[in-house]
């Protein structure tokens, strides 16, 4: 297990290194930071002093080294908009998105396991076809449009739910969660159903049935553990994609999460904050990939021994 984990950490860390380097290169590609931070009227002496103070006149390797050191200390400079330290802003926004995303994945996986298993139990039955239609539609709806429709129907027309903001009881969660949930749920139902149909036609399920095991026991006790591996892989990919959804949902519902922070800093060219947000997202995705791998290894003993491809 330990060697398996070490291997996975190393191979998952490669993308992380690329992001750190990529962010550094982008910071240089956006043009001279001196022009970005100083007013147009600054004299050339002021420019030279600013460059020297912030190390922009050092050679590129030295700058890269400084950048790595600062990133390790979570020092990304201050926001151009608010003057606050960028890392504080990002760390403040992060838990909101994490809560939202965690809730979404929990609900999506649980719901999809139930609905998908139900559909797979009798292939081509009415339930199966209804689940197929619903999940296909759910996976194809543009999320921003779904959110707006939710606001229009439940917020404006019926006046049941608040249309934006995080203040209030549990009802503020309904529309953002539903919007974020819809695509992962639709996709996962299709994956669960497909892999469950395969598992339920395997010989060991026939044996379990012939020994008199009930439907619940057959599905959740016997078939599920074998059927869940592809579900886990796809769920991991979807969780990465949830960042896309979070940007949209937080923008529409005015949640001060990391998605909204990223879009705002891009629209107002606040590079320090964007840099910190991108790095934190990358680290989270790195951790998530490791978590998915560990779950794989816990569920499937073959994975633990497998030689990496």
């Amino acid at each position, binding site marked *: 297990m330990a060697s398996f984990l070490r291997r996975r950490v190393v*191979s998952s860390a*490669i*993308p992380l290194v690329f*992001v750190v380097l*990529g*962010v550094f290169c*982008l910071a240089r*590609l*956006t043009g001279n930071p001196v022009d970005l931070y100083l007013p147009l009227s600054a004299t050339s002496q002021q420019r030279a002093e600013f460059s020297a103070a912030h190390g922009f006149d050092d050679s590129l390797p030295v700058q890269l080294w400084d950048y790595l050191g600062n990133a390790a200390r979570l020092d990304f400079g201050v926001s151009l908009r608010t003057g606050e330290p960028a890392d504080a802003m990002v760390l403040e926004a992060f838990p909101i998105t994490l809560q939202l995303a965690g809730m979404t994945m929990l609900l999506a996986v649980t719901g999809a396991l139930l609905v998908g298993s139900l559909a797979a139990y009798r*292939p*081509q039955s009415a339930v199966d076809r209804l689940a197929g239609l619903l999940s*296909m*539609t759910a*996976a*194809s*709806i*543009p*999320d*921003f*449009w779904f959110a*707006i*429709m939710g*606001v*229009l129907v439940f917020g*404006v027309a019926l006046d049941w739910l608040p249309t934006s903001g995080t203040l209030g009881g549990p009802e503020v969660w309904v529309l953002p969660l539903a919007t974020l949930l819809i695509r992962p749920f639709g*996709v996962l139902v*299709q*994956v669960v159903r*497909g*892999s469950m*149909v*395969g598992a339920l*036609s395997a010989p060991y399920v026939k044996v379990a049935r012939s020994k008199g095991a009930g439907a619940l026991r057959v599905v959740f006790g016997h078939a599920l553990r074998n059927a869940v591996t*592809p579900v886990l*892989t*796809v769920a991991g*990919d*979807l969780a*990465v*994609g*949830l*960042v*896309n959804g979070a*940007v*949209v949902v937080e*923008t529409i519902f005015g949640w001060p999460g990391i998605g909204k922070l*990223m*879009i705002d800093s*891009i*629209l107002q*060219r606040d*590079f320090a904050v*964007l840099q910190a947000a*991108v790095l934190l*997202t*990358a680290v989270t*995705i*790195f951790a998530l*990939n490791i978590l998915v791998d560990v779950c794989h290894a816990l569920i499937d003993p073959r994975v633990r021994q497998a030689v990496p*491809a």
Partner: protein
Amino acid sequence: MPAPDGRIPSGAATSSRSRPPRWWLLLGRDRTAAAAATVLALVFLVALSGRLFLGDRAVRQDLRASLRPPSLDHGFSGLLGTDVLGRSVLARLVDAAGTTLSIAVPAVLCSLLIGSALGLWAGYHGGVRESVAMRVADVILSFPSLLIAVVVLYVFAPGAMNIVLILAVARIPVYLRTARAEAAELRSRLFVDAARTFGTPASAIIVRHLLPIALPTLLTVATLDFCFVMLTESSLSFLGIGIQPPEVSWGLMVAQGRQYLRTAWWIAVLPGLAIMLTTVSATVLAAWVRLATDPGQRWRLTLPRKRRGARAAVPPEMIA
């Protein structure tokens, strides 16, 4: 849309029994898939030829006609109502169809071509080339496409060309993984060994022997990916970092209609419906293409729907 007619041997007329049925006959038997194909064909037709008939209707402003609800009284332009500047929503929908497809189609084609070529090459040769290609795919796939887009569009100006580039790069790994898996399985098959024994160069083996077998799967993935690319482009445009006014795309229309949600629902609702209709059709058609291009499964399509049995699972590599 990708039609599998090229793979059906047309010259073998000697025995009509062994010849697989024509793809359009198969399509006609499946009503859902036929409907989906019709919708997609219609969308493409409108996108390609719509602008010829529009004239300036999509941009002509008429403040007296501002926020007019859908009605039959004002001819073609007023059929689906007008926006706040009095521009015809229907004309703008037609115009936006052109923009949306002119981004989605090149992006899908680029990633299909590059991803498949790299994947087949890596899978056929194996070894170091294979692991390097797969690592690159992992690196790209472990980032949310919107995040890449956000960062790249920060540096370069948002524009159709850059969006196509970003979407194409972001989706290359999907094809790369699929093509590699197919090629890796095929490279040890007897007919590939035979070709190698006769001294066929690797490039010829890949093009003549591997590609025809991998193509159906790759086309299915491309059909599904078309949905994903369309949705991402709409999200980007909706967020204001995609298509910029005065150009118009469906996602941008939803964004522009959002402020008038309470008074003029049609501006935001209709483009969303257009996106959904197109993506659902593509998904349905992709499921059908998968069956129709698989010689082992094609016979199922000749049965009535109820007796077809369990459909195959959604390939996990299409989703990300």
